C-alpha cells in the first residue's frame, strides 16, 4: 500500500507533466501575467474534524525544490468538447508539488521515512504567476504537521489551504497559521491516533 501510494503519485506526475506540455503547445488566447485561483473549501471547526476527514496525518520536513505543473483533466472518451470547453480543459490548473519526508505518522498508510508528494494550487509557469487566494505555500526545509487527502492519480492535497498545515516550532509545538482558529498539538494528535 505504502510503495503503491508513492509510485502512483510519481506516475501521475509524469502523466500530468506530459499533458502540460501539450497544453502549453496548444496555447491560450488569454495571456495574463497573473492568474488568481479562488476555491471554496470545506471549513473545519476542530482538530478532531480535520483528523476524521484526513486520509493521512503526518509530521515531516519539506524537501528543498519543487515542481510546478499544469494538471489537466483527461478528455472525455468518445465525445468532442466544444471549443470553450476544450480551452477550459486545456487550461487546467497549475499546481506546485512539494515532497515531504515523513518523520511521524498519526494516521494513514505511510511510515516514518516515506516520502509523500503534496500539491498546492498555484506556482509560476511559463512566465505566468498563478496564485490561490488564501493559499499559503509550504516552505522549503520547513517542518510541518499536515492533514492530507490522498489520491491514486495525483499528489495529495491539504484538506484546507490554511487549516490543514501546522508549522512545527521549537519544543514540537504546532503553530496555527493566521486566520486559523483551530489549535492542536502533538499530544492531541497522538491521542486521536490511539482512539
Amino acid at each position, binding site marked *: 500500500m505504502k510503495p503503491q501510494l508513492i509510485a502512483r503519485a510519481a506516475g501521475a506526475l509524469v502523466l500530468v507533466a506530459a499533458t502540460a506540455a501539450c497544453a502549453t503547445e496548444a496555447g491560450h*488566447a*488569454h495571456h495574463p501575467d497573473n*492568474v*488568481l*485561483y*479562488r476555491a*471554496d*473549501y470545506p471549513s473545519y471547526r476542530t482538530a478532531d474534524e480535520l483528523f476524521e476527514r484526513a486520509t493521512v496525518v503526518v509530521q515531516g520536513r519539506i524537501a528543498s525544490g519543487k515542481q510546478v505543473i499544469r494538471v489537466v*483533466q483527461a478528455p472525455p472518451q468518445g465525445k468532442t468538447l466544444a471549443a470553450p470547453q476544450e480551452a*477550459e480543459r486545456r487550461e487546467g490548473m497549475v499546481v506546485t508539488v512539494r515532497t515531504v519526508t515523513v518523520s511521524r505518522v498519526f494516521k494513514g498508510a505511510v511510515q516514518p521515512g516515506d516520502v509523500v508528494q503534496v500539491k498546492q494550487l498555484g506556482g509560476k509557469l511559463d512566465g505566468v504567476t498563478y496564485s490561490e487566494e488564501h493559499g499559503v505555500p509550504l516552505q522549503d526545509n520547513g517542518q510541518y504537521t499536515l492533514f492530507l487527502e490522498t489520491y491514486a492519480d495525483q499528489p495529495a492535497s491539504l484538506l484546507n489551504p490554511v487549516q490543514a498545515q501546522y508549522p512545527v516550532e521549537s519544543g514540537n509545538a504546532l503553530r496555527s497559521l493566521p486566520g486559523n482558529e483551530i489549535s492542536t498539538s502533538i499530544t492531541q494528535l497522538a491521542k486521536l491516533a490511539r482512539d
Partner: protein
Amino acid sequence: MPFRLSSVRRSSLAAAALTAALVATQAVPAPALAHWNGTGQLNAYISIYPYNYNDTWMAPLDRSLSNWNATASPAYFYKDRLSNSTLTVTSYSDTWYGYYQACGSSCMYVRVNSRTINRDASNWSNFVTSVVVHELGHGLNLAHNDITSIMNHGRNRNSMTTPQSHDVADVNAYY
C-alpha cells in the same frame, strides 16, 4: 452663430449631465463591509457556454443562475453558445467543492467538484446550488468573507442557496 451656440449649449448640457451622472455614481455608498475581489467579470450581464449534464445535476446548476437573476441587482447569468465562459462538473482529485478563475474580463471558468460534493452533502441539491452561487459570486467580483453571506466558507451549504442581502448590496455597489 446660433448653430454653434446651440452646440455649445448642448455640449455644456451634456457635460453637465455626464458630470452629474458621474457624481451620482460616485455618490453611491459602498456597503459598510464591502467585500470585492476585483478579479470578476467586467459586466454583471454574464454569459456562460451551455453546459449539459444529467437532469439531476442540471436542476441545481440552473437554479444557481436563477437565484442570482432573481436578486434586485444587475446580476444576470444566461447561456450563450458564443460565450467562452464555462461551467464544468467533474470529479477532481482535490479537496475543494467549487473553483473560479477569470479567463478574461468577460470570460470565466467555474468548476464544480462532484467528488467532494457527493461525499459531504446531506441536502445534495442545495449543496450544489450553494457552491455554484458562491462561484458565480466571484464572477460578480465578490470576495470571501466571514459574515452571513453566500461567500462565507463556513456557510451551511445544505441550506444557504441564495445570495444574501449583503451579497446583493455588494453587487449593486460594484456595478
